[in-house]
């Protein structure tokens, strides 16, 4: 919906005043997505007509590709990043290539693809690069093999394979190079802090970005009643990920209890406080714009406008930082 507002397909405004130019596109098919992930609004067995289904809890207005490309060209000066989200469908690869080529012919804004691994092989990934794709995202979402199996494989119409996802991650890394691949990790599906932090280190060591997403229950999905991650935990995970990715912290800096809950971060207190004060750890994780600035910022993507920002589509300062500090209770883990 934010993208539809930015391209003026829909009227609307944001609660706060910030620049926005990260356009997220989602492929649409009459048959819908053929996957059935327990937390996803597009899940095949989620009740309701596919065209009425939400994804990350908002409506995705349907537009024609020609019209979309025209609007992108018209508003190019304010666009920072484009992203096409594939879904699991037999035509998704063909159509993603077609849309990419049509966009790349008219617009220079860097373009990412959030891929559907079941539709891909290495040759297809190489073709994405050849036609102008800048970055590849893989929606792993569930950060352990057990969770992945329970939510995405062993489900009514599931069948997604953990191994296939990682094959696409590693092929993409080889084809696209360092820091050109990102793995989406969804916080709050039932994983432990240790699971997340171990994955962040593993990805960082391979020069792959972990992108954080906050689980936000979709009405009528199988996880509709599953609670969101408490904000305190979410803030600490945001900080831990930033310290690993930007400050090169390793696993030995973090101490966990027997259940994998984060107990302690071993770092100089004033240094860590300085990192928090930058506000950067709490900005939305997304592919950068042309100059390295946050490009894909998904405002209100995992929280309602009436709730606290989970991630910020701008660098938080002032009162926002005060609130973040209160939510995080950093002293308890330093």
């Amino acid at each position, binding site marked *: 919906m934010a993208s539809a*507002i930015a391209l003026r397909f829909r009227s*609307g405004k944001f609660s706060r005043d910030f620049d926005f130019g990260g356009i997220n596109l989602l492929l649409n098919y009459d048959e819908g997505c053929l996957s059935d992930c327990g937390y996803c609004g597009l899940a095949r067995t989620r009740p309701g007509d596919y065209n009425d289904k939400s994804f990350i809890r908002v409506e995705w207005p349907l537009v024609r590709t020609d019209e979309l490309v025209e609007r992108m060209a018209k508003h190019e000066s304010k666009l920072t990043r484009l992203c096409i989200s594939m879904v699991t469908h037999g035509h998704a690869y063909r159509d993603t290539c077609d849309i990419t080529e049509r966009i790349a012919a008219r617009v220079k804004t860097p373009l990412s693809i959030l891929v559907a691994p079941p539709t891909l092989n290495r040759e297809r990934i190489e073709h994405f690069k050849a036609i102008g794709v800048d970055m590849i995202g893989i929606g792993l979402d569930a950060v352990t093999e057990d969770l992945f199996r329970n939510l995405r494989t062993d489900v009514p119409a599931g069948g997604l394979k953990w191994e296939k996802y990682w094959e696409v991650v590693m092929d993409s890394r080889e084809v696209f190079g360092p820091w050109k691949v990102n793995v989406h990790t969804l916080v709050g599906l039932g994983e432990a802090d240790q699971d997340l932090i171990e994955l962040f280190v593993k990805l960082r060591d391979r020069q792959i970005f972990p992108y954080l997403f906050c689980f936000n229950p979709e009405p009528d999905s199988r996880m509709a009643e599953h609670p969101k991650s408490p904000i305190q935990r979410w803030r600490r995970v945001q900080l831990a990920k930033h310290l690993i990715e930007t400050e090169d912290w390793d696993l030995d800096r973090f101490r966990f209890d027997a259940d994998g809950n984060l107990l302690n971060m071993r770092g100089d207190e004033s240094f860590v406080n300085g990192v928090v004060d930058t506000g950067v750890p709490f900005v939305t994780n997304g592919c950068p714009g042309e100059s390295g600035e946050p490009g894909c910022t998904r405002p209100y993507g995992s929280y309602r*406008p*009436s709730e606290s920002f989970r991630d910020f589509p701008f660098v938080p300062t002032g009162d926002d930082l005060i609130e973040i500090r209160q939510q995080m209770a950093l002293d308890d883990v330093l």
Partner: protein
Amino acid sequence: MTNAHTTGHEILVEVSGYPVAVDRMYHADSHMWVKRLTPGTVRVGLDALGVETSGTLAQLSFVAVGDELARGRAFGQLEAAKFVGPLVSPVSGTVSRTNDAVVTDPGVAEHDPYGEGWLVELTSADETELADLLGTPEAITEWFGRTVEDYRLRGVIAE
């Protein structure tokens, strides 16, 4: 301005592609309309442009019946897909009724902003404040048309 017609209890005209009811008064900044029901009692709602620029409505909530409102104070909250903000009272008064229909389904305020999509009713509305509102069809349509053009230039509404 084209196509003046009556629908239900409203007298609607079309201005720059939007319906405007000219049988009531308007507070320009808040996009709230005010319609007299009986002496001292008014009904308040959000005009079509206020609804449009908010985006798809998700939730409307109101203060309690009996609450005293001063002009410019919030009588509720509007939440849309990407926006949340106060519903600002265009006049002072006491809340005598709130519209349960729009609380249950905010879409009613989108589809029928001048009729079934009204928001609250106030008693003891201040007559001097009512006089400050836009109150003639000419003033209303001139303001509305100018505002639509301004919003289009600023990219606030869909193309």
